[in-house]
């Protein structure tokens, strides 16, 4: 039962956090210079009054905030300013699953790769495989994703051209073949980061007392690796995984653009550029809630892996 109380407590904290995000975004957004209703073609005062009434912008800011909060409590984000007649809820419902699938694949790729490469570099410390992998890790951390995305796409085009068939689609969304390259591109930076984390964590473990004891007992190296080293070294990686999932899922803007993927990322970015109030609010609060949830989820997961931090 202790775990349930723990989750309940964290969830209440989470709701408070989301309320804070919503409030901060609301007031920050209304203080950003620029007028969301302006467009290339000017409008008369009468038309402007109509449009303001439609979006509730004619009311005082305090009233707008109250209306906004009550709508939020009912899960209604309103209608978009720039994409006429589209509900923000619809935008999130249609496009978030795409971002989520892309994100989950990217995280899987990053986590499996990061843990594996990180463990390898630690085992082969200061030898050729270590140097080689770390070289690519530095590359993966320092090269921005739009470069990797463009290069990845170019590689597909050239490969398809050389083979004479479309092995991987250049862009688009739908099948697993569509998802493979974009999710690898998206996960690369995180994988590089996780590799470094895993390496340093593993190095600490390799020279620890209990590993030495296990070796002295004559335990097979494979068993030591799996049972003692990996399980202990993986903990810091798990900690950053929650925020990493949220970061990857929200940070897919460039990859979504280059590979023409209908994810939520581009709405997130375009809305800010276009001062689309409702979409900014909707996506920010939604992603905020998502991040809070992922952190709680990882905290619970952490307890399952490491009995020492289990609560209660």
């Amino acid at each position, binding site marked *: 039962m202790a775990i349930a109380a723990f989750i309940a407590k964290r969830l209440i904290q989470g709701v408070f956090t989301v309320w804070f995000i919503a409030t901060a975004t609301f007031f920050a957004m209304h203080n950003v210079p620029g007028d969301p209703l302006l467009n290339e073609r000017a409008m008369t005062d009468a038309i402007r009054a109509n449009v303001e009434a439609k979006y509730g912008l004619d009311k005082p800011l305090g009233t707008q905030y109250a209306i906004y909060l009550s709508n939020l409590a009912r899960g209604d984000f309103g209608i978009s300013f720039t994409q006429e007649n*589209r509900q923000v809820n619809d*935008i999130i419902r249609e496009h978030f699953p795409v971002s989520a699938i892309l994100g989950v694949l990217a995280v899987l790729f990053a986590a499996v790769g990061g843990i594996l490469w990180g463990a390898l570099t630690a085992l082969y410390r200061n030898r050729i495989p270590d140097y080689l992998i770390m070289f690519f890790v530095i590359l993966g951390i320092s090269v921005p994703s739009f470069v990797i995305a463009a290069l990845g796409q170019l590689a597909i085009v050239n490969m398809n051209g050389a083979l004479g068939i479309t092995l991987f689609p250049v862009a688009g969304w739908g099948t697993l073949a569509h998802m493979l390259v974009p999710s690898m591109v998206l996960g690369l930076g995180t994988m590089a980061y996780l590799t470094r984390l895993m390496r340093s964590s593993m190095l600490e473990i390799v020279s620890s007392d209990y590993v030495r004891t296990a070796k002295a007992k004559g335990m097979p190296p494979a068993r030591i690796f799996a049972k003692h080293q990996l399980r202990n070294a993986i903990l810091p990686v798990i900690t950053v995984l929650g925020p990493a999932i949220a970061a990857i899922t929200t940070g897919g803007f460039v990859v979504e653009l280059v590979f*023409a993927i209908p994810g939520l990322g*581009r709405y997130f970015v375009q809305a800010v550029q276009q001062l689309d109030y409702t979409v900014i609010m909707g996506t920010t609060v939604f992603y905020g809630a998502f991040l809070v949830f992922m952190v709680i989820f990882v905290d619970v997961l952490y307890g399952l892996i490491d009995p020492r931090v289990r609560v209660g």
Partner: protein
Amino acid sequence: MPASSLGVFAVSDRELRVKFERPTPYFEKLVAFVTYFPAREDFVNSTDGRYASSAETMLYNGPYTVDEWVLGASMKWSKNPHYWNEKKGFLDEINVAYITTDVNAKLNLFKDGQITDTALSASMLPEAMERRWQIDRLMDGTVFFMEFNHRDGRLTNNRNFRKALQLAQDPAELVYKVLKEAAYVPAKSLFPGWVRGAQDFLHNEYPPQSSDIDIALAREHLELAREELGLSEFPAIVILTGDSSMGLLTAEYYQELYKRNLGLEIRIDAQIFKQRLAKMTSGDFDIVMAGWGPDYDDALTFGDLFSSWNLNNRGRYSSDEMDAQVRIAQAELDPVKRAAAFGEIQRLVHDDVVIIPMYERGVSFVVDPQLVGFRRRSVGPEVDYNYVRLAPLQEP
């Protein structure tokens, strides 16, 4: 305004009667402008506020129907079996499989044979030529210019000051040496080159006033402006521009140019789109990098821009002479006299330096040779698949 006072009546299901306030010789062009398209009230009301936001909530009567629309991702069109005109709509299906604003991604898709046409930016042209692609060009209709703030108390309200800026620049240098976009052409007037007069292109009937660079004369005008304004030295003036690389490049070019030629200090104010519009509307600028594209296929879509009552006249230029000419252009039924009014507007814009034209924007693009009849247009929706047919593949 109540709908009954509008002067538009549906006499029967197939007859529309419109009462004009004044003669409107360009009315048939207006009704081809998307804003004037009719909407079916009962259908719009039945969509529960979601009209035209998905394939199911749209109503149209073109040669193709929209069967599927995943917003921001893809669309599927197919031949409209009820369409009346057999001269349009020859394809069974059009698959808009990718929607993205990334020109590089589109180029890659074109190379991979996934799409039939794509725009080419300047940096892509060498490769396109190497591959011996057939490169086409279209003027997209928009003209870009430096618009002055004519409000009282602004430096740019002084005609001699504006004249000096006009004489100290040459749009050809901007287009050919700075922007280097192959599809752009230097602008000569408020009216782009493709705009028609009475019988011919307006530029042929009323050639734009020459705008040769003359720095000595420009300095004379600047000196006159200084005396008229009673200044010992000009304060820095502000160029308002967008935050795109093209907007910044243009603003920096003029900053350097006017420093060199006239010794003027210019401050660049780069803003996101909505904030640039807010500053344009409130008059918080001296010069703004602006552009205007056509709404409908008539010279008036550019011609009435600087009438004193036009809300898009954000520099608040106001002159009785201009207003009189715009009124003629609005209501004159004789096409020759009407073209003369546009010629006069063109002269006024130049002589009074309402704006300094910079360039007409164009787009380079490549189309799969199998696709015949593909069109891009300067007015209205740009890409037109109405007349597209598939040509049989030719063996090399």
